């Protein structure tokens, strides 16, 4: 095999092996989700809506747990609340902006 190509392949394989080892040892690796979260300068926003009432939820951990338990999360723009995601079952919905949604996706209860 040509020497330069082999070096490149070996370096690539070594990187793959390192990533697999870190993954196996539960060392947290940066992800696209984390990158999206860090690049987003907005504040996380979460609202709980029941019937005609809507209220902000500043406890993001509890918001993520509540949203996770819903039937499905769909991209749903809400201009007034400035949210882009809606996690709902029936008449109850959690509305999250991208920042909050990406934050929730990184939690162990969402993976």
């Amino acid at each position: 095999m040509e020497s330069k190509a082999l070096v490149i392949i070996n370096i690539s394989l070594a990187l793959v092996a390192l990533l697999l080892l870190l993954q196996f040892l539960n060392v947290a690796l940066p992800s696209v989700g984390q990158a999206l979260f860090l690049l987003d300068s907005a504040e996380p926003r979460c609202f709980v809506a029941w019937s005609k009432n809507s209220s902000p939820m500043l406890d993001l951990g509890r918001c993520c747990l509540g949203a996770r338990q819903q039937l499905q999360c769909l991209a749903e723009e809400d201009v007034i609340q400035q949210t882009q995601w809606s996690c709902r079952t029936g008449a109850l919905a959690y509305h999250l902006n991208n920042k909050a949604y990406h934050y929730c996706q990184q939690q162990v209860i969402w993976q």
Partner: protein
Amino acid sequence: MRQPTTRGEWIFLNLVVLVLILGSLNIAKAQGWLIPPQEPIPVDNGVIDIATLTLEQKIAQMVIVHGGPWNEGQWKALQVGGIHLFAKERQELFEETIKSFQKNMTIPFFVTADLEGCLNPFAAFQEFPAAADITTTTEAFEKGLTEGQYLRSLGFSINYAPVVDLDDQIWTCRSFPGNETIVAELARAYVEGLQQEGVIATAKHYPGKTLVVRDPHKYIVAATIQEEDIYPYTVIAGSVKAVMVSHIITSGTIDSQGIPAVTSPEVIGSLKQSFTGLVISDEINMLGLRDFYPSLDEMYIAVFKAGNDIVLNFNEDPNEVYRMIEVVAEAVEEGDIPEEQIDAAVRKILEAKGFVVR
């Protein structure tokens, strides 16, 4: 195939083998194959001798996880105490999931739900009145009875309801309306109806104010507890079979001494002075609780050491739940958590599941 001749080719060959090995290990871990299988727990005509359970089996019985088909095998192998189910599209999906989980289990799982009314995992096909719409004890009893009948028919054994927080300023639908006296009476009626159908009711979120706190302080919310917040628990302590403890840091009538209530031996100890049923933690992976402690291991130990009988851990990775069990087992072996405390919790759990425990 010719033998590698250059150093580069030898390195290539070794790296390929290494990647294959590490890849296989990661696949095995993801499938839960690295979790050692637990021996079946011996049951003799409905009688369990607690001395025959290993420490890991006992601790596993204290854990309720999020159940799903993707991790069913691992949860069954670990013999965890119960599974919690989230919302599904159809009733049949609940029935199939529960039937599959309970198949061949000598000690059945607790199957738990968050059916409060406005919080309703069955809302896609079955509605129930919200607690905020209940104004009489007759209505409350009927609500408990109806929900109990439905849950029992599907195979559920615990419902995380009623909410006895006095004021729901966030969802606006989870609390019964009225002052502490009215809330206590409505809750008592609901508990009677639900438990009459054989489903364990869970009063929450002890010691209160969980639904009014808005501003988390350093990821954990804090609140001052007043006598009226505790009053509903004093009324229903003799009838409700479970109480869920919140994460908030409390002061006032119930003082958690600057730490989350769910990890406070003082808070749980004070609860257990008047309540002999199951003490259940709120879900422990909420970031506020995780970040309060320097490490996950310390958080795990704190939750069990505080005196919770059941710990909710909805981490989707069975390897991590198994690691939690091992961490807690080590803490028991080192004397940090009394084994008698673990035994007392497991005794309550197994009796709640219908076994006679020696």
